[in-house]
Structure formats: structure tokens, C-alpha cells
């Protein structure tokens, strides 16, 4: 959806450090990582001249409030429940090799990250996602296997 550079362009760019970061760019990176929100930059929030940008940045992240802590968003209106992502997700395969790992219904849905409910993918246990946590890697199993770009990370 967006990147740190685009966010930076909308910040005051004064490097005043009121947010606790050393620069506006660092703040933008923290925004991207969901560590901080637009509310954490006092000038942005309080000064009228930044009002529009404050609203824009808040909205950008409002869209992802439905997202999980890994930033995974499912566009439910696009997803048609093909299950490609479910079967391709490495932790899903590791936790349920003979169920979803083999293309079948989950043997134990509770252990999985992605499942299909009412024809649409549902994300759960996102702390298991390889993009999450200390040893995170840029896994894209669920992105490249989706025919309709219904999964996105923000």
C-alpha cells in the first residue's frame, strides 16, 4: 500500500524528535512497522497546518486496523476460497502435513494460520507467521500463490 518514503513526505520533516525518534524518517519507519501511530507525533497531531496529512496518515492505518499484528490483511471481497495460500503456507504445512499440507481439510484447524471459512480465507494464530517475531523472514508463500492478490502485508 505504501512505504516509509511516502509517509515521510507527509510528516513535518523538522526532525524535532518530540516523537522520541531521532528523525522524521525514523518515525516513518516506526509507523510502517506499526510501532507508533500518527498520534505519536505531537506537531502533526496538534498543528493545524498538518491537519490534512494527519488525517491522511491516520486513514492509511485505519484501513489496516483489521490487519493482524503482522500486518496481514485479507481482502475478503477478492478472496474466493481456493485454498492455495492455506496449502502453501509453510507453518500450515509443518503443523498439519496430512491435512492442509496435503490439500485436504484441516485435521486440527486450531493450529493453523490460514483456514477457509464460508468460502473466504481467515487468518488466526498470526504469531506463527514467518513474517512475525525476532527471526522473521520475508515469507511470501500466501502472496505468490493467490490468483487474485487477496492477501497483502502492510
Amino acid at each position, binding site marked *: 500500500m505504501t512505504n516509509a518514503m511516502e509517509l515521510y513526505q507527509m510528516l513535518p520533516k523538522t526532525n524535532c524528535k518530540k516523537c522520541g525518534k531521532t528523525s522524521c524518517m525514523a518515525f516513518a519507519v516506526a509507523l510502517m512497522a506499526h510501532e507508533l501511530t500518527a498520534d505519536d507525533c505531537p506537531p502533526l497531531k496538534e498543528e493545524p497546518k498538518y491537519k490534512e496529512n494527519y488525517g491522511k496518515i491516520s486513514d492509511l492505518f485505519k484501513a489496516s486496523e483489521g490487519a493482524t499484528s503482522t500486518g496481514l490483511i485479507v481482502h475478503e471481497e477478492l478472496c474466493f476460497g481456493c485454498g492455495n495460500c492455506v496449502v502453501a503456507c509453510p507453518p500450515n504445512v509443518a503443523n498439519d502435513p496430512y491435512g492442509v499440507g496435503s490439500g485436504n481439510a484441516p485435521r486440527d*484447524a486450531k493450529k493453523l494460520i490460514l483456514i477457509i471459512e464460508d468460502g473466504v480465507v481467515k487468518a488466526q494464530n498470526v504469531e506463527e507467521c514467518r513474517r512475525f517475531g525476532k527471526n522473521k523472514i520475508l515469507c511470501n508463500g500466501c502472496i505468490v500463490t493467490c490468483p487474485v492478490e487477496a492477501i497483502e502485508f502492510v
Partner: protein
Amino acid sequence: MEKNYNVCTGCGMLCDDIEVESEKNIVNKVYTACRVGVAHMKEGRESAVFRVDDKPVDEATAISEAVAILKNAKNPLIFGLGTSTNETQKLAIELARKTSATLDDTSSFCLGRVVEALLQNRFKACTLDDVRNKADVTIFWGADPSDSHPRHLSKYSYFPRGTEKQRGWEEDRTAIAIDVRKSHTAKICGNNFFQVPPGGDAEFIDALIAGLSGKLPKTSYNFPPKRILELANILKGAKFGVVFVGLGLVYSLENLEPLFRLMDALNEKANFHLIPMVGHYNMRGFNENLFEETGYVNSVKFEDGAVKHGPEYSIVEALKAKTVDAALIIGSDPLSSLPRSIAKNLLEIPVISMDPCETLTSRSSKVYINTAISGVESGGSATRMDGVKVEFKPVVETKRLSDEAVLKKIMEAL
């Protein structure tokens, strides 16, 4: 704990691992099925509808009207049955025999030729389970399962681990799409997408055959020979290959000769199987059941105990020539699916329509019988696209009659 799985009859995949939560015969939640399957399972309604000449009637009136139409007809057409169970199809064949009917299904204008060739052992066959367990190279030719059979790639043909395919799709499998447009499936196949111009499949096949034997592949549309050679190389290395044949390929070929040539050439160099991408959940069942009874997969005419077969007994030709004088349409909507110029002849003869849904055909029928949704509200058995028999119980109950029950009543009254 053993789970209680249902079968989805939303398409020719007949997924057998669907969990359903229902209450008071209403489906609330469906797990693992794709969106198409969920919509199909949640379609059910309560009340039954019987109609004669656009007026609501009771069951007995509708049945006796249907019987009268069939009795008065010299050559009724019985058509449809792609979404009916094997049991219903066998009854319909019996009914056709009894009424000297012309019997046909949608396969006469789609995949019938391919299924027929398979049943005559002209192609090497395998099951979808074999594909999951062994296939290293799969070709989707003129087919877009991501749209038509949403779970095809995830359940069998590309992404799952199989007994001999344990390392996952990135390493273990190659998926190839050959199509006239970049479909959703083609997108998944990435660089292994080969775009041919409409009608260009036969030429592409011959170029590929040339490539397989190391000759320079030529096409009139100048498909880069290098790419065809690359494709030929992938195919030559296949230990267990599958060609999924879709409507796009069948429509583009005048006859199946190019496909025979291709499969033979592939099997000289490697090991290739063929599975037709059957859409309706039991079209293949119809083909097999009729084949067993008559030696033909569609387009037959029963007469004094004998069977005749030929294109003139397909729905298209029979309506065009106006040789049929009544029609019993089961679970199909020819008024929408056939060209207007042909379909309009249906409006000139009395039509009995049996369908769980109102369609253009049902609305223009003399008799309409609203049947249960086969596979959701009524059970039976069906034949998956790869020929495997699948049995299923109804997911919920309904007051509406199954098409099997309706046919039984019609047979008794005859």
C-alpha cells in the same frame, strides 16, 4: 475423532472434505469449501413449487401433466442430467428407452468427445489422487481451474504435498498454462504461461510435437521457437505428467486428432496422462452411464429397443431440425446456454423442466417441477472428473422431491 465430512457438488471436483454446520436444515457455516461451493450449499429453500402453464399446482397434477406430454410425444428430447446423481441418470436412460426418446447432455457441445476417447482407452488416464501423489508436470490447456474449479490447484494439481512429492510445489512441481488469455491460473504459472491466438491450438500442438523431436517448431503466428523448445524440454523430463484438457482447447480443435498426436508424442518421450476439466459435478457420470448402456456417451435416440447415435441426436441438431416434439429438461438451462436461433425452437414444443432453481428454461416451460438440490438436499453417487466414484448423503433435508424421486413417479405413471 473422525470428522464427518460432506461432499461438495459445486463442480466436477466433488471435494469430499467439507465440514458443514447446520441447524433446522439451514446451512450456517461451511469449512474448507471454496466460495462457489459455499454458495451452492447455501442455496436451499423450503417450499416446493409445481407449476403448469404458469399456474401453481399440486404435485400430482404436475406429474400427470408431465406424463401426458411424454405419452403424446413421438420423439421427446431428454436433456441435462449433468447435475444429477448416477442413480437419476440411469433412471433417465430407462425412461428414454421407454418413451423412444432422444437423449443428450451438455457434453455434446463441450467435453463429450474427450470423455468418449478416454473411455475407449485412447488416452492414458490417472486419478486426481495420482496427480497429488506423483505429478511433477501439469499442463492446464484451455482451462482456468482457478475460476472454474477453485480448489483444483490447492487440493490436487499444484500445491499439496503427496506421497512422492514431499518437498512442496516450488521444488517438486511445474505447472504450465496454455491459453488464449492470461487467466488466473496462467498468472499462478508465471513464466510457464504460453499464450496462443484463438484457434491456434492445433498448430501449437504440431509445433510442440516438432520441438519434442528436436525439430524447429514453426507456427503461422510466429510463436518464438525458443520458447516452444523450452516447453518441450520441460515436458520431456516429466516423470509423471498430466494434461488437463479444458473447453478452450476442445472448442479450438476441429477434431481430436491433434490431441491424440500430442499425447502419443509425449508418451514416446515421457509419461503423460489426461484428465478432462469437467464442469458439472456429474457430467462424466452421464457419459459413463450411457456408454455402459449403449456404447455412446451422448446424442442417442432410442427406437423399438434399438439405439441410434449421431450428431443429429444432439440437442443442437435435434432442435435445429425440429425432429423432437417435446422436451424433458433436467437440471439444465438450454434456453440460456444455447444460441438463441436454436433455443427458440424449444418454445414451440411442450417442455417439462426439473430444476432446483428458476431459470429462463423453467420460466418458459409448460410444466415446472422444483427439485431438491442434488448433493445438498438429496444424496446418491456421482463420478468425478477423473472417473472416481464418489458417494454422498444429503447435507440438509428438504420437502422438495429429488429429481430421482420425480423420475420414479413419472416412470410409474407411464
